[in-house]
Structure formats: structure tokens, C-alpha cells
């Protein structure tokens, strides 16, 4: 049963360094949500007082969030997750653009799978897609973007910051190019919100997910400018301005608004604090032989460190760390582990032994420097152990 508001929370006594995969819901958020699971359970579409109470909470959350994103309330469309928001943005605009004779979209090669696979599905329906390359640090190549846009292009989608390597993209510049060429610009800001200040003035659509910022799983949103017409992905009762049907998850949305509010409030302090831990991790990890830092050395999220350790396989590193009570990840925590190396690392031009030997450590508000010290001690041992078993390492030494 819910026991209240510890300031420092921990699950299963682990050192949790997988905050890009998901985060622990904050106590304040759980407390904000509970009344809407319990006593205030009305359907926001119902006319009676219980319904109107839910409606009011929903609209207050929407207004708060709109404020934080420098948008209008009717530009905030709640949905179930960032995967849905990204599918919605791309497909919703694609089906609308088709009517205007446009059939080309541009996405970066290092987008999250929910953008990439949506783009591929649109390709299967006859749309054309340009997969924009990135440089060795994962930064989108602006000149190639400019070249790729043509008169059939209806959308450019580039994430604000990458979930695996933490690289921050030149969103302002991309938005400017899109504005000049009169193409809509969508950005997946799931990993960026609450970690770095966002400049959204020229962003036409933006995706966010609550569970990445200490909110609950199962809630996301698409910010979509009013001037942009898109088709719904979920048809039905006409909720969310007719753009996303389905009974609103009021508790989740209230929690989302709370989580966003707190994330922004703590951002100045937390991003500095986490960057210090990140830098320590980087410093120590790079002392391990044949290691490299993936992503941009400077333009990176304050909470992301991503390494390649040649001849130590990623999954095995993660599982060894797990044995030491450290929760980490190899690349993204998407669906169940697949066989291919990360498409993001491949796009950076990593060699096979590097791409397969990657480790992502992502910090959060509950991490402490002592934990990082411990990780810095354990990590070299783990890498060493795995290399001991590897045929390649022995070959070298």
C-alpha cells in the first residue's frame, strides 16, 4: 500500500542507471493521480458533476502543459504514449498531405523505431521517405536536409535529443530550414524535455511521454499547431478536439502535468548535478582500454553516457552489471532484445565490435554520486571479465 513521500526513492535496491528507458513515478505525481483513480473517477465527457469534475482537472492539466510548451491549450492532444504521438504525427499528416498531392517525408536515421518503422509503413503505402544521415557524433547533416526537401515534401521529423547516445540535434536550425521551405517540422522531444531548455517557437509538432520524466506509463501527448491539419489515428467519440478518441486517462494526464511541472522546476539544478555524475562516468569509463564515448562530447544530454567497449558484448555487460546491482542498458530498451546492433550506432559508422559492445548509462534524479563511484569501480572489472572469455582479446594480448 502507498506509504507516501520519500524524497529519495529506490526500487529493489538497485543502482538505477536506465532512466532513459523509464523512470520511477515521483511521490508527488502518485499523490496527484490517486484521487482520480479513487473518488474523482468520472468520465470527462459526462455531463453530471462527477464528469465535469474530471473535465475540469483535464482542462487544467492541458492549460498548464500548454503554458509550459508555449502553446495554446487546443494545441495539446493527449494520447497513450510517445509511440502513439509519433505514429499520429507522421501518419496523421501523411494521409492529409496525400490529399494535397504531397507524398515525401524526411526522418533522420537515428530516430526512435516508432518514427522509423512508421516511415517504413508509409513507404509500403506508396509514400517516399528520405532517411537523413548523421555525422560521427549523431548530429543531423543540415546541408543534406536542405537538399532532400522538395516540392512534394510535407514533413521533416528529427528528434530533439537521441535516446541512445544523448546527442542534441540542431533543432533551431532545422526548424528554420523547414520554415523557409514551408515544410512542417515534427520533433520527438521525449528524452529532451526536462533535461534541457526547449526552443519550440518554430516546431509544428512535438511528442512527449510521461514515463520518461517521473510520470506514469501509458500517457503521452502530441503538441500540434492549430494551423496544421492532420487526420486522427484513433477515430471514435471525438475526444481531444476530434483528433484522438478514447476516454481520457484523467489520472494519468493529471500526473503527467504534475511531472512536467516538477521536471521544469528542478531542471536547472538537476541537469547540473546529473552532468557532474555523467562526466565522472565518462572520465572513468574512457580509462578502460579500447573504449569510446558514443555521441557528441559536448552537445549531449546531461544524463546520458554511452560507451563502446570492444570485445565485450553489450547484453553480457548489462547482465554482469545487473549481478552487481546496477541497472543499465545496451542501446534502447525498446522491445525484446533483437539480434541486430543498434541502428543509431550503425548510423554513426561504428565497426561491428564497437556496435555490439555498447553500454548506455542514463542518470536520473534519484542517483547519487556514491552510486557513481561504485559503478566506476565495478565497470572496469566487468569489462575485463568479459574480455577474458572473448577469443579476440586473447588474440590481441
Amino acid at each position, binding site marked *: 500500500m502507498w506509504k507516501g513521500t520519500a524524497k529519495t526513492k529506490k526500487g529493489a535496491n538497485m543502482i538505477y542507471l536506465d532512466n532513459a528507458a523509464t523512470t520511477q513515478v515521483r511521490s508527488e505525481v502518485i499523490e496527484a493521480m490517486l484521487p482520480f483513480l479513487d473518488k474523482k473517477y468520472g468520465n470527462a465527457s459526462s455531463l453530471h458533476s462527477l464528469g465535469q469534475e474530471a473535465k475540469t482537472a483535464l482542462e487544467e492539466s492541458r492549460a498548464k502543459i500548454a503554458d509550459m510548451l508555449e502553446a495554446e491549450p487546443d494545441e495539446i492532444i493527449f494520447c497513450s504514449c510517445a509511440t502513439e504521438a509519433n505514429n499520429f504525427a507522421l501518419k496523421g499528416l501523411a494521409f492529409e498531405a496525400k490529399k494535397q498531392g504531397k507524398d515525401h517525408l524526411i526522418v533522420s536515421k537515428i530516430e526512435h523505431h516508432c518514427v522509423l518503422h512508421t516511415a517504413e509503413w508509409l513507404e509500403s503505402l506508396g509514400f517516399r521517405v528520405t532517411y537523413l544521415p548523421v555525422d560521427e557524433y549523431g548530429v543531423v547533416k543540415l546541408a543534406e536536409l536542405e537538399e532532400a526537401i522538395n516540392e512534394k515534401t510535407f514533413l521533416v521529423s528529427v528528434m530533439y535529443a537521441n535516446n541512445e547516445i544523448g546527442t542534441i540535434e540542431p533543432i533551431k536550425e532545422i526548424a528554420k530550414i523547414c520554415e523557409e521551405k514551408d515544410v512542417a517540422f515534427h520533433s520527438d522531444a521525449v528524452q529532451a524535455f526536462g533535461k534541457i531548455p526547449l526552443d519550440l517557437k518554430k516546431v509544428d509538432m512535438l511528442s512527449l511521454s510521461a514515463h520518461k520524466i517521473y510520470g506514469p506509463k501509458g500517457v503521452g501527448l502530441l503538441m500540434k499547431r492549430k494551423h496544421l491539419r492532420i487526420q486522427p489515428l484513433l477515430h471514435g467519440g471525438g475526444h481531444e478536439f476530434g483528433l484522438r478518441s478514447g476516454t481520457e486517462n484523467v489520472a494519468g494526464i493529471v500526473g503527467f502535468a504534475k511531472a512536467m511541472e516538477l521536471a521544469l522546476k528542478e531542471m536547472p539544478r538537476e541537469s547540473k548535478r546529473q552532468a557532474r555524475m555523467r562526466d565522472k562516468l565518462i572520465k572513468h569509463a574512457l580509462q578502460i582500454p579500447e573504449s569510446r564515448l558514443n555521441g557528441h562530447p559536448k552537445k549531449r544530454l546531461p544524463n546520458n553516457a554511452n560507451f563502446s567497449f570492444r570485445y*565485450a558484448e553489450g547484453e553480457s555487460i548489462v547482465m554482469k552489471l545487473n549481478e552487481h546491482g546496477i541497472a543499465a542498458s545496451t542501446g534502447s530498451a525498446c522491445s525484446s532484445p533483437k539480434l541486430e*546492433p543498434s541502428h543509431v550506432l550503425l548510423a554513426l*559508422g561504428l*565497426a561491428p565490435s564497437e556496435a*555490439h559492445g555498447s553500454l548506455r548509462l542514463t542518470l536520473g534524479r534519484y542517483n547519487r554520486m556514491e552510486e557513481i563511484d561504485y559503478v566506476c569501480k565495478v565497470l572496469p572489472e566487468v569489462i575485463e571479465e568479459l574480455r577474458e572469455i572473448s577469443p579476440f582479446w586473447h588474440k590481441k594480448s
Partner: protein
Amino acid sequence: MYSEKVLEHFRKPSNMGKIKNASGIGKVGNIVCGDVMWLYIKVGENSKGEEVIKDIKWQTFGCVAALATSSVVSELAKGMTIENALELSNEKIVKELNGLPPVKIHCSLLAVDALHEAIYDYLEKHNRPIPEKLAKKHERIQKELKEIEKRYKDFLELEKRLEK
């Protein structure tokens, strides 16, 4: 996703390492796929005068399943006659580990392949007749390797660049 048995082998793998002057070596997998196994066998005779795998060691680069299957194959094969070792199947390995996640089944294949390749190597080096089934298997493994090297040529080039 992994059974406790798999994790036990992952935590304390048996027979890892290298045999100097091995009777046969099997090298399977490829760095582009993320799993590479080298398996060494020392062949000797048992009390009945049969040819058996006296010693076995392995070196593996790969995921938890790759390490666990290497370990369990080495445990099972150790002491087996060559004949019996050739009958070892990946079903047996998977069963021994109390199952593997579907995406990881290929790892069990890889471990059995490594063992059989080591036996092939041993038989060939000693100019011994090679059972048809084994010869076919060897052919398949080598063909697959070639195909992967061809398909991922660019990717492997990057690796070579690193070696410099």
C-alpha cells in the same frame, strides 16, 4: 527472459579458456552478428579404448545465451565419444538450459556448430574419414560465413580500419 539455469551458467561458466595444442578447433559466428565462439577439444581414449573428448575449452564473444550455451555444451561434451558428441543437438542444449527466449535459439545452434566444427577440424587434420552428415554441416557453416562476409562487407571494412 532467461531461465535461472541460463543465468547460473552465465555467472559461473564451465571450461572457459583455451587449449594449447588442441586436437581440433571450431570457430563459428562472426563479429558482425555479435556472437563468436571458438571451441577447443583435446581428443583421447577412454578405458574402453573409444575416442573421447578428453578436454574441452571455449572462448566466446556474445550475449548471455551465447556464453551459457558455450558453457553447457562444454559440460555435456566433455568425456563423450566423438560419435555421441556428433549426435548432440541444439534441442538438447535448449532443454538442458530449461529453455531459451525465441530470439536466442540461434545461440544454441552456434554452440553445437562450434563443437562439430572442432570435431571436423580434428578428423581432417588427422586425415580421418569424415561422416557425410558432418561434411555437409561443415559446408553449410562455411557457406553461411562467406555469405555474411559478403553481405556485410562494408561493415567489416570498418572493423579492419579499427585494427590498424
